Every structure is written in structure tokens, then in C-alpha cells.
């Protein structure tokens, strides 16, 4: 049976902020562009961002301060040319989003309002109440729709067509009925989002399974800085659903089972407002030492009762609602239960400043681009600051869309062939006919639990080595699965199995990269190497997977700039 081949100038995978922003640029420039997405565009995780989006808009702030805060927050691992571009273009980007219709909260004189956020020298986060991501996602989607972008939703991109250093399309199937197709294009962009779903306790959507990363890695292309996974201090106990930094910003106090305000011991000056990594470590330490609270003793209290009903209703209504829904606790009347949650991935598909995917330290892949959370242009280095990532997704999405427009003139279309779909078809057939005894939920649960236990907030040689073995073992067992659903219509069983395959592959990148980085920097904390080692590790990890699934590591220099590394204190 032959598979249809559709031809476009550009094909984008993912319709969050990054993908939709790029698509609009291409369409405006008269290019024929399709966006493939496994969800309806408005279900993309960008819509979940609450807190804000950074830009130095006000007179008391400056672009240089924004750059400095970002580089310092990154523990000096960010590439400073990319940081400079981001901070310089941030004000225009926010205003452009505003011009397109984003419903920002306003100051009395009608300007975009800003609020303070962790690690920022000035109130810099523009916001739309506590639904910043929602307004931005709706706006960019609506405006892309308005100019006529072709959104192909509920299609799963399963492979790229990669040959001789050039990408010339993607291979995908329709989730609704397993119809398959090849999307042949001069330029392909990945904007597939985050991948913190590899962890049990996570703030991320079910859909954030990191497919894009391992699709790329399976072709022998590198992934960068995968060891840097950010753990947010305040996820709701049990689920990990996010309670935004605003809760601590407004004065929330952290308490252990003995009623102690334990941050006094870990960060006597900044207390609860120390940086995310510091607070997350303090919480996990309290729990480990037996001072946890809650039915499973796996949480600490955040007490907001002293703020009073009025302030909570005015500033944190959505958060109150979440705690009532998921814990049955009302923060107006009682403390609620939180613990650290896997939240954001600093690493990803390595790209240059214009979004071209890297083949290795020196070469680029032709016709292939990435932006947003799945990419690593490295503006966040080892630790990203709050409200910088929706900025990155929107701004670099747009920027990379423009660089694709410029490149398309020079790129030629290598025609796709039926055989380009072989890998995807084999993968689907293998899973549909596999008759083993392992189940997808079973293996996924083991992966997520062990990643949280062994590659979480605290890491050591011992836990990471153990985790390498666990992931390898799980990959072997994955070959022996069986799914219940053999039908063609909305076979989410099949989809979850494919996604699990991706999670297993990129998880190995996370643990192998973390094992080799014998220092503590930003979100990556090694109990056996507790300090930052600029001599040995002021460099990006570049990890590659061979045909047997083994990982090898290389390193790439960090792009320096005007800020020299200093010790990080808050």
C-alpha cells in the first residue's frame, strides 16, 4: 500500500508558542507551511504557564540587567550571544504579542504591568493575571489561524527523513485512524516541548513525553546538556502539579513536621526566596531526615494563612483552587502540602543562534531547525529563571521562523520516497503485534519512579550508575511488551507505547550525562561533588547514541560574553 506524500516549503512539528509563532512568520512570507501536532494546538503545554514573561520594559530596568540575571541564574553555562539576542528582543516581542491581542494585566496608565520574580533584579515579568501562558497561546494560535496556517492536529510525528546531513521532511500518522503520510519539505522545524514526564513527580502535562528529542537522537544526532532538569520547589504533594513561585513571593512560609521554619538553616538571608534549586534541595533534605508531613510523610507545609483571605483571593485564586481540587485543603484556613517536582528541561536538541540543528560541534544539519523547550540554544544554561521560558519559546519560535524564511530560497527539495516511512511502519507493526508480557503502564511507572529516586534533586555516582542499569534493563523489557488495543481508531494504547520508547531513550541521555558531570552546577546537584568546577566542566555536554543504543559523550565550549563567571550567592 502506498503512502501519500504531501509537499510543503516548511513543516513544523508542535503547535505551542514556539511552533505557532514560527508558522505565522512562514505564512506571512508567503511560504507553504503545515503544522503537525499530536494535540489540538490549544492543548499544548504553553497554555499552562502561570507566572509571566520577562522583558526589561520599565525605566528602572535595563536589557543588560536582564542579561546579567539570566547568565548568573544559568550558573554561567548559558551561551551569552543567545542570551543577548533574547534580552534585546524581549521588549519588542512582548509588545508584538500585545498588538496581536494578548490580554496582559495593565498599570493605571494603560501600560503592560510587571511583577517581581525569583532571581530578577527588577520587576520584569509581564503577566495576564495567573494565566499568562493561556493568553499568549490563544493569541499566537488565533493570529496564525487568521493568516491561514494549515494546522494538522491529532497527528503523531514519528520520524524525520534524514540522509547525508540533510533533513527533508517528516513521517507521521493520524491518531484518529492510523492513516500514514509523508510530509516532504525543504525545511523542517521541531517545537515539541518539554520532557519532564520521565519523572514520577512532575508538573508537566501527560503529553510532554519528549518525542522530538529521541526521534532526533535515533539518527545519531546529539542532545545537549540533558543532565540539567529543573526541579521546582513547590509541586502539590502526590501529583506534583505546580504551585507557582508567586506563593513564596507573596510570603508563604515553609514548615516541617516539627513546626520549624527550616529555611532558616539553609538560606538564612533569602529564606523561602532563595533560588529554586536551593529551596528544592532543602525540602527534599527535610523529608529524607524524617521531618516530612502528610499521609506519606513525603511533603512539607507551605503556610499562607497569615496572608488572610482577601490577599489570597486577589493574588492567588487559581492556586487556591488547585490545592482544594487536588488536596482538599483550603490555603486560607490551613497549610498545604508541597514537595519538589520535575518542571523544566534546560537541555535538548542543540541549535545555533538562528535555530539550525547541530550535527556536531562544528557542523549543522541542512534544512533542520528547533525552538522552544525541546531545543537547547542555551539561554538557560544550568538553571533557567522563572518567566524566561515562555519568552524563549515565543521569541525564538518567531526568530527561527524568520531564519527558515531566509534559508528556504537556498534550500532544494529532495524528493521523499515510500521507503522513508519504513522505520515508522516497522515501529507501529512491532508494537501492535508484540505479544510479550510487559505492559506499558508497568514499565513507565518503574521508569518514572526510579528517575525521581535516582536522578532527582540529589544525585550521586551510586544512584546514577544504578539508574543507568535500570534504564537499560527497562529498554530490554520494552521489547517484550503487549498492548491491549489492536484497533485503528484512536489507539492511544499504541501511542503511549511509542511515547514510552522515547522516554526510555532520552532518559538514558539524562542519567549518562549526569553521571559524567562530576560537579554541582545549577539544577544538577551531585552530593559527591558539591561545588562548581569551572576548570573541568564549564562546557556543554554533547551526547550521541549509536545504533546499539549506547551513549557516548563529547563536550562543546560555552560561548562567552561580557559576564565573567562569579560565585553564585542569593
Amino acid at each position: 500500500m502506498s503512502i501519500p506524500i504531501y509537499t510543503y516549503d516548511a513543516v513544523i512539528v508542535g503547535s505551542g508558542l514556539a511552533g505557532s509563532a514560527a508558522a505565522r512568520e512562514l505564512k506571512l512570507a508567503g511560504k507553504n507551511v503545515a503544522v503537525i501536532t499530536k494535540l489540538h494546538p490549544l492543548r499544548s503545554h504553553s497554555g499552562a504557564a502561570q507566572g509571566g514573561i520577562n522583558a526589561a520594559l520599565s525605566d528602572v530596568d535595563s536589557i543588560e540587567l536582564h542579561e546579567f540575571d539570566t547568565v548568573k541564574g544559568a550558573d554561567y553555562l548559558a551561551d551569552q550571544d543567545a542570551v543577548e539576542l533574547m534580552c534585546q528582543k524581549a521588549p519588542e516581542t512582548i509588545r508584538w504579542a500585545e498588538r496581536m491581542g494578548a490580554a496582559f494585566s495593565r498599570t493605571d496608565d494603560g501600560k503592560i504591568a510587571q511583577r517581581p520574580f525569583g532571581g530578577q533584579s527588577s520587576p520584569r515579568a509581564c503577566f495576564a493575571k495567573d494565566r499568562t501562558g493561556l493568553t499568549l497561546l490563544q493569541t499566537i494560535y488565533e493570529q496564525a489561524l487568521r493568516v491561514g496556517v494549515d494546522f494538522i492536529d491529532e497527528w503523531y510525528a514519528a520520524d524525520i527523513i534524514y540522509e547525508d546531513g540533510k533533513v527533508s521532511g517528516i513521517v507521521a500518522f493520524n491518531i484518529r485512524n492510523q492513516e500514514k503520510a509523508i510530509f516532504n519539505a525543504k525545511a523542517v522545524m521541531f517545537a515539541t516541548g518539554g520532557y519532564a514526564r520521565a519523572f514520577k513527580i512532575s508538573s508537566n502535562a501527560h503529553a510532554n513525553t519528549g518525542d522530538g528529542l529521541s526521534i532526533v537522537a535515533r539518527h545519531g544526532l546529539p542532545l545537549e546538556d540533558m543532565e540539567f532538569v529543573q526541579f521546582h520547589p513547590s509541586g502539590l504533594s502526590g501529583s506534583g502539579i505546580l504551585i507557582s513561585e508567586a506563593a513564596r513571593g507573596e510570603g508563604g512560609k515553609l514548615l516541617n513536621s516539627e513546626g520549624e521554619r527550616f529555611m532558616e538553616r539553609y538560606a538564612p538571608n533569602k529564606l523561602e526566596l532563595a533560588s529554586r534549586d536551593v529551596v528544592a534541595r532543602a525540602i527534599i533534605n527535610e523529608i529524607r531526615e524524617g521531618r516530612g508531613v502528610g499521609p506519606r510523610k513525603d511533603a512539607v507545609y507551605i503556610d499562607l494563612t497569615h496572608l488572610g483571605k482577601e490577599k489570597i483571593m486577589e493574588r492567588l485564586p487559581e492556586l487556591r483552587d488547585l490545592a482544594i481540587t487536588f488536596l482538599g485543603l483550603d490555603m486560607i484556613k490551613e497549610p498545604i502540602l508541597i514537595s519538589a517536582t520535575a518542571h523544566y528541561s534546560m537541555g535538548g536538541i542543540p541549535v545555533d543562534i538562528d535555530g539550525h540543528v547541530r550535527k556536531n560541534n562544528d557542523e549543522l544539519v541542512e534544512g533542520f531547525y528547533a525552538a522552544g523547550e525541546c531545543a537547547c540554544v542555551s539561554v538557560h544554561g544550568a538553571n533557567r529563571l522563572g518567566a524566561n521560558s515562555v519568552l524563549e519559546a515565543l521569541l525564538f519560535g518567531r526568530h527561527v521562523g524568520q531564519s527558515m524564511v531566509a534559508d528556504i530560497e537556498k534550500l532544494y527539495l529532495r524528493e521523499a520516497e515510500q521507503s522513508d516511512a519504513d522505520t515508522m511502519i516497522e515501529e507501529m507493526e512491532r508494537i501492535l503485534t508484540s505479544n510479550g508480557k510487559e505492559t506499558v503502564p508497568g514499565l513507565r511507572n518503574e521508569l518514572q519512579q526510579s528517575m525521581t529516586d535516582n536522578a532527582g534533586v540529589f544525585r550521586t555516582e551510586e544512584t546514577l550508575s544504578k539508574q543507568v542499569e535500570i534504564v537499560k534493563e527497562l529498554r530490554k523489557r520494552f521489547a517484550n511488551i503487549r498492548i491491549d488495543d489492536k484497533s485503528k481508531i484512536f489507539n492511544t494504547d499504541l501511542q503511549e507505547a511509542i511515547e514510552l520508547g522515547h522516554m526510555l531513550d532520552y532518559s538514558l541521555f539524562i542519567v549518562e550525562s549526569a553521571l559524567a558531570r562530576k560537579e554541582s552546577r545549577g539544577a544538577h546537584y551531585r552530593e559527591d561533588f558539591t561545588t562548581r568546577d569551572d576548570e573541568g566542566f564549564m562546557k556543554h555536554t554533547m551526547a550521541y547514541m549509536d545504533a546499539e543504543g549506547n551513549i557516548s559523550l563529547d563536550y562543546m565550549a560555552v560561548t562567552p560574553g561580557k559576564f565573567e563567571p562569579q560565585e553564585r550567592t542569593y
Partner: protein
Amino acid sequence: MTTITTQTITFNVFRFNSETDYLPYYKTIEMEVTSEEVVLDILNRIKWDVDGSFSYRRSCRHGICGACAIKVNGKGVLACKERMNDLIELFGTELTLEPLSIKRAVKDMIIDKEDFWKKHEQVKPYLIDEIDEHPESENLVTPKEEAQLLEADYCIQCGLCHYSCPSLENNDSYIGPAAFAAAYRFNADVRDKATLDRLDIVNAPDQGVWDCVKCYECQEVCPKEVNPIEKITKLHNQVFEHGVAINNVATRHAVGFAHSIKKHGLLDEAELVRYSEGTLPMLMKHGKVGFKMFKVGKVVMPWNMPKSDKLDEVKALIKSSSTVKF
């Protein structure tokens, strides 16, 4: 929450695979439900522990993406935001899980939402203005102007209101509450330039705002308190304010409105429809809905008319409708 309690619940789960099944069926599953769980946890456990072929949509799992809307015992819920304990308190220990619209079911909880998205697009749901691609400053919008959106921008497109709306169920061309809320959202935006275009769309017979039977179902079911009926009423007002009302069922409706208010100080649904469309057409077109609404207590007999708590809205409409002359 110091302790976690559990209860045994019997679920009747709607099952249907349009590829292989001629008719849907219900499967009974008993499960221990803990006080920590929301409906989505149950859907997950059915898929992960009982039958992997069970299908539903979900993404964010905390009430912000709109993917997971279903019905439990006929009540529309966002699965990831609805606490099991609340449902058990409401309905007891036997619960029926169904898709939003049985006639649109494709596979288990998954429905074909094509009509929902088409109608969304129909109202031009985007800010219409020439966009400055490289602005040096933002539009100035005061907090008061911003507040005019009345949180209509908080709609997460879950479709709960759409698939609970009796007008829509009876009339496929009716645009529906969610799309009207979107139309209002952009019409209320001081930056937008296409109010009249959108009013043409929402003012058209059959599809437009005048076909709302004011049952308040959309307000009740919305998990984000968008209150679509309030926005529909605002669109009624805009039609008169912008002088685009035409002498048709719509405006006769408004006359009926005024009449009803004089009589009761509140909208009398049945009277209103009779005024606008005449008694016989009314019975033919709305009889089924009317009866359904009556059964669930949504139509009040004239002698039981309560006093309106929406009197301000209503007065505003009367005022604006009385400015047009035919």
C-alpha cells in the same frame, strides 16, 4: 488532609469503537476510590489497570488545557478538575461515565469535535487590526478597559457548554455559547476593529444569539466561570447599540422581552419565544426543548416567577432596544 479515605464505587463506563462496534455498550467496573482522586485518575486507572484499549483525551491534567471534558451521570465535568468525593456526595456510589455527546462518539470518551472548532472559527476569533510587527510601544489599555473582557478570554475551549446547550442540540446551525463568548471577547476589546462583522454573524437568524433559549445551562456547566449567557446578553445589547438590528424575529424578541419584564420583572422564556415566533412555530421548533427544560425545572410557570437578580442586564437591554425604530 491528614488521612486518606477510600470507598468502593461502581462505574458504568460507556464503551464504543466506531471501527468495530455497531452499538455502544456499558461496562461495569468496581474500584476502590481514594479521597485524593479526581475523575481523570479514574480514567487513567481504567486504561492502565483494567483495559488498555479504553480511550479518552487529556493533556495538562490541571484544568487549563480543556482536553478532558466528559459527562458523569449526565453532568458535564472537566475530568482533571472534578473531585471524586464531590461526585460521590452528589450522586452516590454508582457513577456513569460518558462522552460529552453520545451521537458524536468516536471511541469511548472521545468525540468528534469538528463542529465545535468550525463554529469557533466562524465568529472570527482573533483580534482584527493591522498588526505592527515591530512595535516600539504597546497599545494603551486601561485596567478598566481590560476588565471589559469579563474573563471571556479565560475560556479553555473545553466544549462543556457547547455540548450541554439545548438550542444547539436542536439546531445544528446555532453557533453556541463558547463561540459567542469568543465573539464577545473580541468585540469587547478596545483594540479590535471588526465589531460590526462579528455582529453580522451573531445577529443572523437561526445561527445567532437570538436562538438562545436562556436556560443558563452554559453558565452552570462552565468550569472556568466564563458565563457565556452573560456574554450572549451583552451581544444582544451590542446589536442594538450599533444599530444593526433588523426587523425580524430578533427584534420582535426584544419587544417580547420588554413585555415580559413589564409583567414579571423577569424574563418569561415561554412567553418570549411565543412573542418572537408565534405560538404554533414555537411549539414545533422549541416544544421538545421547552418540555425538557420544564422537566428539569428550567421553565417557570408565570405564577411562580421569581424576581430577577439579572434585572440590571435586562434593563440595559430594554433601554438599548428601545432606541431603534422600525
